[in-house]
């Protein structure tokens, strides 16, 4: 079971603003999803190695060689820019 305070915490961490109605809805919905996952705990996994990844591929690396990308394409794609900088809302301290 997930309680409302946990929903509020997760929403805060994800920077989501929820209305009281939404908080109630998500508390119920997330709880039922988590309860469903709880079914997995019925399995005995004592001798099963923990899975860290879904795909069994290791050691994918690339050569350390430059391929510059045209920066204007990226700067232009940003919501706001100032000259060669990206422009973002000022960060309020305390968080």
């Amino acid at each position, binding site marked *: 079971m997930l309680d409302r305070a946990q929903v509020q915490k997760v929403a805060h*961490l994800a*920077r989501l603003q929820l209305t009281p109605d939404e908080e109630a809805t998500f508390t119920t919905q997330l709880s039922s999803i988590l309860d469903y996952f709880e079914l997995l705990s019925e399995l005995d996994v004592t001798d099963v190695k923990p899975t*860290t*990844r*879904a*795909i069994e*591929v*290791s*050691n*994918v*690396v*690339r*050569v*350390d*060689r*430059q*391929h*510059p*990308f045209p*920066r204007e394409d*990226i*700067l232009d*794609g940003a919501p*706001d820019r*100032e000259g*060669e*900088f*990206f*422009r*973002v*809302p*000022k*960060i309020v*301290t*305390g968080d």
Partner: protein
Amino acid sequence: MTTAAPAKTQYEAIIGLETHCQLSTETKIFSDSSAKFTTEPNTHIDPICMGMPGVLPVLNQKVLEYAVKAGLALNCQIAPYSKFDRKQYFYPDLPKNYQISQFDLPIAEHGWVEIEMLDAENNPVRKRIGVTRLHMEEDAGKLVHGGSERLSGSTYSLVDYNRAGVPLVEIVSEPDLRSGQEAAEYAQEVRRIMRYLGVSDGNMQEGSLRCDVNISVRPIGQKEFGTKVEIKNMNSFNAIQRAIEHEIERQIAAIESGERILQETRLWEEGSQRTISMRIKEGSSDYRYFPEPDLGAIEVPSDQLDHWRSELPELPYQKRPRYETNFGLSAYDARVLTDDRDIAEYFEAAVAAKANPKQAANWIMGDISAYLNNERKTIKEISLTAIALAELTALIDANTISNKIGKDILPELLTQGGSPNAIVEREGLVQISDSGAIEMAIEAVIAANPKELEQYRGGKTKLLGFFVGQVMKQTGGRADPKMTNQLLAKKLNA
């Protein structure tokens, strides 16, 4: 009536360091734009480091190699299975809203660094500092707070993402450090090792080496740790030492006056030489780490690991005791010579060419270092080869020239190179060790300076130096100084 003063409580500090080293690769950790430092904003950016949807990060093989070598050099075990994770937080210097880092399966763990300090008698005091882990991660971009220089209360900031995605290794020490001096020494040793490996330039001013300090104090004898405070923003080893010393005093004063130590991050202020509170620390669970689905796991094959291990150079903590044992150098000399790999290798090349080790050490630490400092040059940029230095020490050892003549011909050797033997031959600088020739010079000097002779014999014996100087002048500096002194004293006192 006397009252016994209450015994003053003794405290000890428990200190651990988190060190971030930028790796000297050509490109970023997961994308192929340049990782080099530049002041031109947003020139080294690409869709991957900018977190565009649908892109696929791929690990730079040099980053893996450098991280493994750094782990080996810090005496770590290299993980048989390692992976990357996402660390979530919101800040505009982080375009993806998560940093790709390593959480529970770092590439290297359980290592140690040996620090060496010298006691009052210059004897080495060695201590092993545990290395909890070393992991790979990406750096964040840089915020330029346009508002502060412009209108106060500006509503926006500017961001430069050149540094976003630059490869880092984070090295976490065990809380084994007990003083500011130990912490500064540890950080210096880590930098020395990274530089020996050639994996990081370790430049603190440019931010390629950054240290965060975790520190708490407790009364000696108490088992539980005190509340831990993190300090950031030190940009020199000296600042690390002073910040820690200040913070130890601050925490002890707070405890003694009954205040509670807050678990928080504090910033070192260089100007006021104190730490100031930045923010109350959030618990690490708030980062909600989870495995990075876009990157495969890392399982370094054993032949690859052996190959990288075989490429490690001899490290400073291996050289120091060897210099003492093999070359009879003091702990101090060994420390100075091994601080820089190029200097150490130059010294070793000179010794391999049969230089007298103590003499070679003195030349390198004295006149040659002074020249390098004055000219802002490195040992690789001078014309005096290690072989020529060996020749120079041999000339002095064989009494062919005096140390003084050696110093006289050094500038030419440093700037133009060549062979000391040839210069001595060309300039006719061979030392005069024939007592007859020196006596002749002495007699000429005495005859030419009757007044000084009279004063000397009248008790002004300090004039011996004057006579020595005159004899040297007479012989073009070539008279054997020891013999000159002896013979002069004899003549003057006759």
